């Protein structure tokens, strides 16, 4: 098995002098600061020679004290080895510019666009630096820079101007106030680029084509996002995606909260996986602080995260079935029925239905209540029985199979190229699971299978989810058998101040690889938190998947991805 040291040796021999600094944190984490001019060559070398074929994302850090921007490229491998390489590139603050990796990795596009709109770091050779999450008004004020001052004062209605556009629809515009201009929220010079609407209209080819908007409010969207289809009749020629309708700036907010205060905020990144989000945020801080979590707390975390995976998959599948068959399609409601049982189990521990704020740095908030094991066992039994029934149902349903088989096929190569993870990747014959690749907590002690399917179509994605429900039930049962007694929280001071340092921590979220890149400077607030969410990658892969499909298939494909807009926008 390749380790971080091997990768470092290979890099140093191939590019002498290009590695300016390095740190080997463990066998599977390599941190290196590389020469900005050679980043593309180094990444190419890593991709081709060292199997780093999974571009996990990029993070920008504003080091205002050193007058520098740092861009960290996160590279990993799809199962060949567990090493994660974090390559840092430094660039001066006055003319920030970094070489783009879009030529090497298809999915670098969105990550770089995001860094551009938030920090103003230019990416050379990027095909189109358009804003992704921000509204056009805010582009140019670079909100994630440390010297971004103002928060808009959005307090009056009078500033909203209603204007009727030539199509006959009302448009609303908000003009900035003087306070905002003073605070620097409103940029003086704006970058020039065609807007989203203009870009898609430019591509219309013939008279018979039209743009069909699905969103921001539409029955298929799990949260507001804009899916525009260029259709010719019922056939989708091309799809365009605009996200950011619920961009909350969680990463920026986390910079203004202490480590403890940040936990409830991380819940809201993805409301169906809030325990995994807590876990990933606390785990990153624990890794910097070097704390080991007590064993009982580890088991509690695993139990709850697996339960939360079950409920998320039940909701995801149910919601998806409701897209296919309308809200009156009964299995959808039965799945929510089963989900409620799981939710009651989780609620009896955490005290909340959705946003749990349960995991703490060094442990968990409270212990399992009496009778939890019996309650959970009986709930799991129902869920397993019912899930088997649903599997049988979906296998025997001809109409369902007609709708789903061979729709939205992702070949294994394509799925890897798109940077997917979680059920959609596993449905494409790639058993890539963070619980195996980068094991945390007590996962190494547990016995479970990584579910995968060969077909890679919409049906396989749903099947993987249903199988994972059963597998998760199996894991929870094991945990309930094995759970030891003991403390549930390591002694941590009330004011958590990790030593200066950085960590990249990843867990298997219900939807895939969820990672947090955390930078600490020794104060009680993080310097930078970068969230690498799985759905971000799903969404990016959606437009190429939809090309050539029917309008009705859009539902079958987009629904089978089980997207969570909140996490994309953060």
């Amino acid at each position: 098995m390749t380790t971080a040291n091997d990768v470092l040796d290979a890099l140093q021999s191939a590019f002498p002098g290009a590695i300016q600094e390095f740190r080997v944190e463990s066998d599977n984490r390599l941190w290196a600061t590389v020469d900005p001019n050679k980043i593309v060559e180094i990444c190419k070398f890593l991709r081709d020679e060292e199997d780093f074929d999974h571009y996990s994302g990029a993070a920008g850090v504003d080091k205002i004290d050193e007058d520098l921007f740092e861009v960290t490229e996160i590279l990993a491998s799809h199962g060949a080895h567990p090493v994660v390489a974090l390559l840092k590139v430094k660039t001066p603050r006055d003319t920030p510019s970094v070489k783009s990796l879009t030529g090497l990795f298809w999915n670098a596009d969105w990550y770089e666009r995001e860094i551009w709109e938030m920090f103003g770091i230019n990416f050379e050779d990027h095909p189109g630096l358009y804003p992704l999450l921000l509204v056009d008004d805010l582009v140019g004020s670079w909100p994630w820079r440390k010297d971004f001052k103002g928060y808009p004062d959005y307090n009056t209605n009078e500033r909203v101007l209603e204007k009727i556009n030539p199509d006959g629809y009302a448009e609303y515009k908000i003009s900035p106030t003087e306070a905002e201009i003073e605070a620097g929220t409103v940029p003086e010079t704006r970058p020039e680029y065609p807007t989203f609407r203009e870009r898609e209209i430019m591509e219309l080819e013939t008279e018979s084509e039209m743009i069909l908007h699905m969103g921001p409010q539409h029955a298929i969207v799990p949260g507001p996002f804009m899916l525009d289809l260029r259709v010719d009749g019922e056939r989708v020629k091309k799809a365009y995606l605009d996200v950011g309708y619920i961009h909350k700036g969680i990463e920026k907010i986390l910079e203004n909260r202490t480590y403890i205060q940040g936990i409830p905020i991380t819940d809201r990144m993805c409301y169906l996986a809030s325990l995994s989000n807590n876990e990933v945020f606390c785990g990153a801080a624990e890794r910097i602080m070097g704390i080991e979590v007590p064993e009982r707390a580890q088991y509690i975390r695993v139990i709850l995260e697996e339960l939360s995976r079950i409920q998320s998959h039940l909701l995801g599948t149910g919601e998806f079935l409701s897209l296919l068959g309308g809200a009156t399609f009964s299995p959808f409601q039965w799945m929510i029925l089963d989900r409620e049982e799981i939710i009651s189990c989780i609620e009896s521990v955490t005290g909340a239905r959705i946003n749990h704020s349960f995991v703490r740095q060094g442990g968990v908030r409270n212990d399992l209540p009496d009778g939890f094991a019996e309650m959970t066992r009986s709930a799991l039994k129902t869920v397993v029985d019912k899930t088997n029934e649903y599997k049988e149902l979906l296998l025997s349903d001809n109409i369902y199979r007609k709708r789903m088989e061979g729709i939205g096929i992702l070949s294994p190569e394509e799925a890897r190229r798109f940077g997917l993870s979680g059920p959609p990747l596993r449905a494409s014959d790639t058993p890539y699971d963070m619980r195996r690749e980068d094991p945390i907590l007590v996962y190494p002690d547990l016995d479970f299978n990584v579910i995968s399917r060969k077909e890679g179509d919409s049906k396989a994605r749903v099947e993987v989810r249903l199988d994972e429900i059963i597998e998760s039930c199996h894991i929870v049962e094991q945990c309930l058998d094995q759970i030891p007694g003991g403390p549930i929280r390591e002694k941590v001071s009330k004011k958590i101040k990790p030593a200066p340092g950085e960590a990249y921590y990843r867990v298997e979220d219900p939807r895939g690889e969820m990672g947090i890149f955390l930078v600490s400077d020794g104060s009680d607030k993080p310097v930078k938190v970068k969230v690498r969410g799985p759905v971000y990658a799903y969404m990016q892969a959606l437009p190429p998947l939809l090309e050539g499909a029917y309008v009705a298939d859009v539902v079958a494909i987009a629904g089978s991805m089980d997207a969570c807009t909140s996490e994309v926008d953060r």
Partner: protein
Amino acid sequence: MVVKNFQLTLKHAIHGIEVTRLYPEVIMDLPAAERGIHQLDVRTCIGCGACARICPNSCIEQVSYKYGNPLKNKKMKFPQIDYGRCMFCGLCVDDCPTGCLTMTREFQIAGWNRNDIIFGPDDIAVGKYSDEEAAKLAEEARIAAEEKKKKKAAAAKAKKAKAEAAKKGDEGSGEKKKEE
């Protein structure tokens, strides 16, 4: 074929029991850990403001309130919670040093106006003192405060005297130095 679909729906229609929780009449049994509306024991609250400091949403404000325990809470400031902003994370409860702020299983709130959902100490308090008790306690507290003040004044005087003495000594030594 699609026979299985029909079978299952029929099974549910015939054998299924209605699971609906008939909310307004029947309220579901909630676990003890439930994080609902706060409850404040005004007799033990010391008004330290830890809850207000830890709140990530800054939804807790310390306001004056009459029916508390002035012996413990000198300034008579108690938390007022803006439920239009509280996200029920439970950090305030975890951080409360005396355990006087807890979360109940009560969750039914809805307001016609924004102000309806701002809960002052009066709305969340338990163990309120009656008017007489409050007056009595206030009196006690006043006496205690006066005594303390007196003590403090005395202490201050003593300290001052000491300081002056020390100063004199200092000056004396200074003079000595000068002399040298």
